[in-house]
């Protein structure tokens, strides 16, 4: 029996009268890679932000390792340490080198001593293949390299689960491959991952489950094979193949 790491139950987020998503429920088992797809504006990114409490949901509950993190007395900073987040536009700390970016959380949040933090940060940069760029500033790195540093920064905190918010959408086609490669290895190493992406190649190859969201709710979820070849709804098939065609071209070019 596999362990459930993350449970989302009836989560709802609204801005005024505008409902971003409503009654989203999701179960994530340890080691799973779950890919969330759907048209833009359906609340996928907001869902990820709600899961690590960067945005407050209006209703519903979230459990991380059986602890309810939406409870009132939750220490949010504590929770976020255990949930890694990778953003579409990287968001590296611009005034710090790659190594310092990865090291900062270890020093200030985990309170490791200098040597331990440095060693751990270097190890994480190695994991994403960038130890030779340790002393470069974000402005001196390519987009793909920046995103890999951002992944290393999140990994350094030893998160229970990693959230990826369209990690390759801001990248030139030729740089997408290196980031997906890092993510693929991460999934294979047993990391639990929740990925919002349009990269269907990645989804089919790596995902244990694909979740199709539209207009603020989950339309359908299942294994890649189920969703690509035996979807319950015509709309799912339509969207999946359209996206595959659109982004497949980009993948081939890359």
């Amino acid at each position, binding site marked *: 029996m596999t362990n459930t790491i993350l449970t989302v139950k009836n989560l709802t987020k609204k801005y005024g009268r505008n409902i971003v998503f409503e009654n989203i429920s999701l179960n994530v088992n340890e080691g799973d890679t779950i890919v969330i797809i759907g048209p833009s504006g359906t609340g996928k990114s907001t869902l990820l932000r709600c899961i690590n409490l960067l945005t407050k949901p209006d209703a519903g509950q979230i459990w991380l390792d059986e602890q309810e993190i939406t409870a009132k007395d939750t220490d949010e*900073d504590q929770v976020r340490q255990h949930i890694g987040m990778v953003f579409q536009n990287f968001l*590296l*700390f611009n005034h710090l080198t790659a190594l310092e970016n990865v090291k900062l959380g270890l020093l*200030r949040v985990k309170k490791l001593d200098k040597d331990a933090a440095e060693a751990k940060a270097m190890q994480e940069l190695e994991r994403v293949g960038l130890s030779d760029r340790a002393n470069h500033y974000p402005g*001196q790195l390519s987009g793909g390299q920046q995103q890999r540093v951002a992944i290393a920064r999140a990994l350094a905190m030893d998160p229970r689960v990693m959230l990826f918010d369209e990690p390759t959408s801001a990248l030139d086609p030729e740089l997408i491959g290196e980031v997906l490669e890092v993510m693929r290895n991460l999934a294979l190493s047993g990391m639990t991952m929740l990925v919002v992406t349009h990269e269907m190649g990645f989804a089919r190859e790596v995902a244990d489950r694909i979740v199709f969201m539209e207009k603020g709710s989950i339309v359908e979820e299942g294994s890649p094979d189920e969703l690509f070849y035996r979807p319950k709804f015509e709309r799912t098939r339509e969207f999946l193949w359209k996206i595959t065609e659109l982004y497949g071209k980009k993948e081939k070019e890359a």
Partner: protein
Amino acid sequence: MDIGKFLQYIASGTAYTLGVVCVALPAGLIFGVIFAIIFVYGGKLLGRFMQFYSTVMRGIPPIVLLFILYFIMSGNINLSPFWAGSISLGIISSAYQMEIVRGAIQSVSGGQMMAARAIGMSKMQAIRYIILPQTLRLAIPPWSNEAAIVIKDSSLVYALGVPEILRRAQLISASTQQPFLAYITAAVIYFLLVFITNRLLDRLENRLRIPSNP
């Protein structure tokens, strides 16, 4: 009176001018940064209060504020004109510096704050380690301009009787009947102070620039 002594008399006011600037500018910076942080992160009510403070301070001529603050201060606590004048100028400058820092924070914040919170940093840690280091770098060019303004506005304390450059120029012009020479001397000294300060801050900006590829 020979010309050497004439010039020296005015120039010796530079120490007072620099003294006023060295109190007013850092005081304005410290309060400006604190006020800007309160404005951006302190919630609605405090934010409104800071907005009010800044609007009022920037809406009144510095010389008028200087007199008001001076009479408040010298009336209640027995401060010398030098300290009362310097602190008053610092208070006035804090409103302008708050606006400079606020703009810089708002252009840095958002994404950087979110990324910092995402690795488990508290708001205060994020401000301290992520937002401020980037903000202060961004603020140097407009801050250089504010430094020039404070150097020039330091001449206002002549009205309180502080024997700085302008005050001395005025005194010696009256006693020697040489107003043109006296005020030109003062002008040259002020100009040099502003010029040197701006060049030094340009250098600081270049030195602190975050490396990036073109």
